[in-house]
């Protein structure tokens, strides 16, 4: 065996060991004692010189001079800040497909079945202090697919990435996207905003009708099977789409609705009031500030960009004060990325809310932690640093709203998934063996162009607008 080969074998063995160790570690809940940090709890102010003990994935104790239990690693965070892991309520980071854009209503499809756990962008997001994302279906359809809330446990399977027991969610979309894709692209309803409303109402009505028929059938079938005589009922097949729509009406699924204009936001709230749908968040919602009191009255939430608009006609009217106005009106608002690059700097996006609208630092922090957690139905587990919550925390070199601060360590369930001091160049889990180095070295564009909301990604081909919206 020559030297080169020997070296390579050693390296391969080492790599396998590292990879294997990583996997084992990833599947376990971790323990760590972070000492002497400024702890941004979000729900209980900032605590100076404080320790946070995470055991088996759960924050066990927050206090001073805590002792590390046997075998638990300690991290000295003197002069550093610890905050809850950032939560992005609107992401398409690692979807295999984003838009099942062939029908205006596709409630039956779910991003749970479109998760790519090998996407290296997960690691990049961890490097920006993010620990949870809401992986969403796109906005091509009035009622799109269901979403999946994921913890960024990089290196585990798609199943293990799932945020256990998170609420079910679904994507709705109003305005130009569904009318362009379906009305103009496919020649089916909806072609107008009026049509969008009718698609929602029509499908809710059909779903309710289905439910009555299906329940009547199952009842008659049970009766017939029990008695063994009479005339059996004509079977009504189980319908996945209508089952999901009924789950929405019954409040089992949180609605996240892509929307821009105030009039369409009001429209959907009227529709939801008619059908008794209560828990929903307006995504993007650039004109939400115009109807902030109405949103607050209905208990509706919003998830907005800090300062991005005018990228298409329906979103010309907006303001960088949107988040602050909503917050001042008591609307639970979050700041989202809808973009793989922005996901890595959501702390900056939240800081802008302080800069523009004088929202308090803690309220702005809530917009990337506790508020998205509320909107995803996971605020009992994450979104703040409290005893009993999950050990999803980030250690920052300085205050996270300081432009010079860096995320130094990111923990999910007490397990360290990112460590700036041990940050390998190439963190891909999966590469295609057919890709040569020259093609594989620039493996991911970290900075994406931001020409259009990512919700409609891939759908331009349907609109014959490929060239106009070519992202390259």
């Amino acid at each position, binding site marked *: 065996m*020559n030297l080169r080969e020997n070296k*390579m074998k050693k*390296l*391969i063995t080492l*790599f*396998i060991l590292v990879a294997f160790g990583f996997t084992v570690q990833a599947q376990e809940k971790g323990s760590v004692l972070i000492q002497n940090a400024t702890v941004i709890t979000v729900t209980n102010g900032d605590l100076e010189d404080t320790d946070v003990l995470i055991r088996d994935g759960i924050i066990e104790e927050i206090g001073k001079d805590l002792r590390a239990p046997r075998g638990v690693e300690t991290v000295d965070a003197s002069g550093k800040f610890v905050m809850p892991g950032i939560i992005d309520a609107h992401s398409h980071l690692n979807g*295999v*497909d984003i*838009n*099942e*854009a*062939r*029908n*205006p*209503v*596709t409630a*039956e*499809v*779910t*991003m749970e*079945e*479109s*998760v*790519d*756990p*090998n996407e290296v962008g997960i690691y990049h997001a961890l490097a920006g202090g993010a620990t949870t994302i809401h992986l969403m279906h796109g906005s091509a359809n009035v009622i799109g*697919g269901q979403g999946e809330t994921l913890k960024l446990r990089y290196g585990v*399977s*798609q*199943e293990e990435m799932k945020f256990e027991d998170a609420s079910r969610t679904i994507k709705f979309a109003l305005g130009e996207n569904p009318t362009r894709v379906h009305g103009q692209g*496919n*020649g*089916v309803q909806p072609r107008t905003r009026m049509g969008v409303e009718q698609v929602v109402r029509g499908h809710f009505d059909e779903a309710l009708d289905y439910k009555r028929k299906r329940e009547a059938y199952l009842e008659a079938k049970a009766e017939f099977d029990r008695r063994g005589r009479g*005339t*059996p*009922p*004509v*079977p*009504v*097949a*189980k*319908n*996945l*789409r209508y089952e999901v729509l009924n789950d929405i009406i019954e409040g089992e699924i949180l609605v996240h609705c892509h929307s821009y204009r105030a009039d369409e936001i009001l429209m959907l709230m009227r529709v939801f009031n008619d059908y008794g749908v209560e828990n929903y968040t307006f995504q993007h919602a650039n004109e939400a500030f115009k109807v902030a009191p109405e949103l607050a009255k209905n208990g509706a939430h919003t998830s907005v960009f800090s300062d991005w608009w005018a990228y298409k006609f329906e979103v010309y009217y907006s303001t960088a004060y949107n988040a602050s106005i909503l917050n001042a009106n008591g609307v639970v608002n979050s700041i989202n990325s809808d973009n793989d690059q922005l996901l890595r700097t959501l702390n900056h996006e939240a800081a802008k809310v302080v800069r523009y609208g004088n929202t308090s630092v803690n309220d702005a922090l809530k917009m990337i932690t506790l508020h998205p957690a509320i909107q995803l139905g996971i605020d009992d587990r994450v979104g703040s640093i409290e005893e009993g919550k999950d050990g999803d925390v980030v250690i920052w070199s300085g205050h996270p709203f300081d432009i010079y601060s860096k995320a130094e360590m990111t923990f999910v369930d007490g397990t360290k998934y990112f460590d700036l001091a041990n940050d390998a*160049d*190439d963190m*891909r889990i*999966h*590469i*295609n*063996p*057919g*890709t*040569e*180095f020259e093609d*594989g*070295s620039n493996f991911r564009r970290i900075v994406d162009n931001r020409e259009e909301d990512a919700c409609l990604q*891939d759908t331009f*081909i*349907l609109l014959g607008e490929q060239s106009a919206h070519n992202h390259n």
Partner: protein
Amino acid sequence: MARLYFEEINAVISAAKIIIRTGTMKKYIPLLVLFFVGMSFAGLQAQTTPAHALTNVTIHNADGSTTESATIVWRNGVIEAIGTNANIPFDAYEMDGGDSLHVYPGFIDGLAIWGSPDLPRSQDLPRLEEPGNPPYDRAGIQPERKPSEILKEDKAFEAAMKAGFTTAGLYPNGYMLPGQVEAFYLSNESEDVELLKESFGLAGSFDEAPGGWGSGAYPSTMMGVMAQFRQVMFDATALQQHMKYYAQNPEMPAPDRDQVLEALFPLVNQEKPLYFEVDQKEHIERLFKLQDEFGFDAVIVSGREAYAKADELKKRNIPVLANIDFTDIPEWYKKQKEAEESDKKEEDAPEEEISDEEQNYREKQLEAWKAEVTNIKKLMDANVSVGYASAGMELKDLSGKLEILLDEGGLSESDVVKLMTVNTANILGINKTHGSLEKGKNASFSVFNKVMSEEKAKVLHSISNGTIHEFEGK
């Protein structure tokens, strides 16, 4: 009758081209004479077909052992005797292998698309009124299609036999539910490819509707396929229930019969397995999910990353018909190997200068490639039932891929033979007749000029269901 007659002629010609003896005369006979003798003999013996005997050959058994100076006797497609002291019946056409020929059990392609109708071209697909609600066939849902009913002419059949295949599972090329799986005796003439085992499984994949994303029908994504698979299963369940009720209760409204949904009943009832073409480990996990919901038996077809799920496959008793359509060997690795294999001393070969970054990349690339080519070995080591399927790979690529499998995949020649014969026969459920050469089994085997893994090895004769196909000189 006519067919039998031609078989005899064929057999005689084949026999004549090797070294020919008859059972009694023990004397070389010129080709033409034998030709006529054969014809008349066939005419006289129409009621009992004569036997064939191939003598003095090396038999490579499915279990990896070899038998030298062996004889195989077969009649009517069935092996009558095999071994070193097989009795040669008086009426047998005897062919002498001259101790130089190698006989392998006929290779079985677990699932191929040979003879399948062409896929529609995107531009030919009709524009739909409702892209969200296309007809079943437009959505790629065609479980009613049987290869035996739609098989068409395909040059691949002859190429397959030349590569040593005598038997294959076939399914129609298509999309999410392309049709049924059936096994066939191969022949070099497409019209002589005969059904061996009728519809014993359904084929499936996560392929979206024809035309893909651009040309428009639901389901156009994998998650859409998952949902639509469930919906057609629910619809089939309801139709079956309706048909059952109606059969007993003619006073109720009649069901709308539907051949597409009815073809899914065996899957709903867990009576036939789903042969599912899938590669990525995440996709395999998605298949597990569907299996958990509907309880059908599954066979994984292709399964490039099946090794990553080996334990789960074992637990679920899911066999794999593995594809060997490996990614090409990384160029730098190929060069490195060539340099090592050549006699050049290390100093003579110029050391390539590469950056640490590239070196790291190469290690990852090689690791990924090795994982791919050792897939079958890892599955075998984990005691997963693993056979072979071309699953769309072209036959011209076979020898190169087999070479990789032998050089880098950790398999020996006997492992490969086992993989492509008895293992695959077990998975297709045709092991009572196929997959090994034994008395009473089907006479399907290939005669190679040398050991199959040696250079310039080729098939001279292929015997499928007892019929001799001749390739020498072609």
